[in-house]
């Protein structure tokens, strides 16, 4: 089983280094449980009409150490609800990374991406080739390969289905 390539537009470019993702929904909205309400609150300080413009499969672009601080899950839940299929950033903060991979949400560490993408460029993440293609600009950039465990978790669709595979396997073979 292999990961399906991501293809979509750069729906937003977060240029801030050490970006705190909680800002996507705003700290005052972080406890909203209703996903529609949460999604409606998202991106209001960046682009008020973001929800109207984004299409399923679109991607977010981030700078260095994306997800720094004390990341919570609601901002990216809202992004996925709006159709965002993954994040490509210069690099990621480990806590954010671990949390989102566990949600089965693709994250792509790609040094140089910030300079290589304009908002709304059409992009493709080719997992097998290990590159991010900018189809609008006809360029491509290699990304840093994910660990085997992270790939397996994304393939499984997140932590729980991933652990089901592991637990089921070890039931058959205790050394697995």
């Amino acid at each position, binding site marked *: 089983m292999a990961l399906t390539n991501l293809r979509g537009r750069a729906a937003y470019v977060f240029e801030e280094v*050490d970006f*705190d993702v*909680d*800002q996507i929904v*705003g*700290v*005052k909205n*972080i406890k909203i449980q209703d996903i529609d309400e949460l999604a409606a609150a998202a991106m209001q300080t960046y682009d008020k009409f973001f929800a109207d413009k984004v299409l399923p499969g679109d991607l977010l672009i981030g700078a*260095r*150490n994306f997800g*720094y*601080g*004390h990341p919570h*899950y609601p901002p990216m839940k809202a992004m996925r609800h709006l159709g965002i299929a993954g994040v490509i950033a210069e*690099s*990621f*903060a*480990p*806590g954010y990374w*671990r*949390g989102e991979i*566990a949600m089965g949400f693709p994250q792509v560490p790609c040094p140089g991406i910030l300079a290589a993408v304009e908002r709304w460029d059409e992009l493709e993440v080719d997992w097998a080739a290990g590159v991010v293609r900018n189809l609008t600009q006809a360029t491509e950039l290699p990304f840093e390969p994910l*660990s*085997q*465990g992270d790939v397996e978790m994304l393939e499984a669709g997140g*932590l*729980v289905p991933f*652990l*089901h595979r*592991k*637990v089921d396997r*070890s039931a058959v073979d205790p050394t697995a």
Partner: protein
Amino acid sequence: MGYTLAEKVLGRAAGGGPATAGSDVEVKPDFVLAYDFPGYTDVIFKQMKEEFGIARVAEPERYGIFIDHMVPAATPQEEELHIGTREWCAENGVALYERAGIGHQVAAEAGYATPGAFVVHFDGHISQLGAFGTLAIGVRRHLLEAFVREYISFKVPHTTRVDLVGRLPKGVMARDVFHHVVRTLGPSSCRFQVLEFGGEGLAEISLEGRQSMCGLAMFTGAITAVVNPDEATLAKAAPLARKQLDPVVSDPDATYAARHVIDLSDLEPIVVVPPSPANTADLKDYLGLEVNSGYLGSCVSGRIEDLRIAAQVLKGRKVKAGFQLHVIPTSQEIMTQAAKEGLIATLAEAGAFVSSSSCDYCFGRIATMTKGQRAVSTGTLNVRGRMGSPDSEIYLCNAAAVAASAIEGRVADPRAYL
């Protein structure tokens, strides 16, 4: 070829010799810890049973649960969460620590900070057990794996080494050393790595100071921090240790991703300016800034040396009228010690609001700030809304600086009071 402490601990936990940084291993955590919190423990307990059909954990002695947030409960829902946690621990035969203090500190007092042990928690501040030579890592929701499998999948991290030399000047505390590391190495300098402290300067820093430094590791991007345990640490940790393990230290010829030297003699008190733990500055550049409240506590301060220095600053003085100073010893054990030493009396006489241990001040559940208010704090974090309104501000600094600021109602230099 030598190995780092992290490589040795993970190799042993994987059932063999040292593992090399970068390799993928299946490791058995010696201890699995968590505090009860909605979305974490309640979900894990439910998934364990309903998704994976596991009624009880196989080796309950490996697990430890803490009730330290939402203490005391303020809503029926909070108390219901605690009830669920108590019931799960009783059913599983798992140790529960309730109202004993902030879990990361209580974990050390209860012997989970076993030198050489591998510990997982969902919360990253568990890294503070590294002060004892324990490799303790916050894995967020991946903690579920440690409840449904004996082993967990893990990538052996690289290590960045920071050697401390020189002596700490007056009024400069352990957490200033950590903030200085963020300032000089950068907030992403140790991404996905272990931050290891060493060097002769460590002798200047108490075990509890090392806990504070290790507990903040995440703000360098590190997944944890460690100190090679010295004789004094082992003498303290060994009688409490919950498992017989050989203590582990990094080899002198271990391979590090990077090495840095910090001269403690050069340091000054630091303030971390909102809204990011990356915004370190000299405290002296913010002197005089009006502040409304002060928080002295949290898992990365609020220990006996913090209370002693605050009492020293406040002895015979008064908290400025209208200023709210909250002093929350990190555990009941520390509270008791502080009471015996007369520190609680000194702080209360000065006008401090002294409370039993709880995590709730650190994340604004109580002592909540409103729009436009500003705090000096020894908490973990200064992001927007952490202690109340998103339009309030948190300036992180050491315990002495919080105490001095409480006297003046403005950001103050503690050195004038020491």
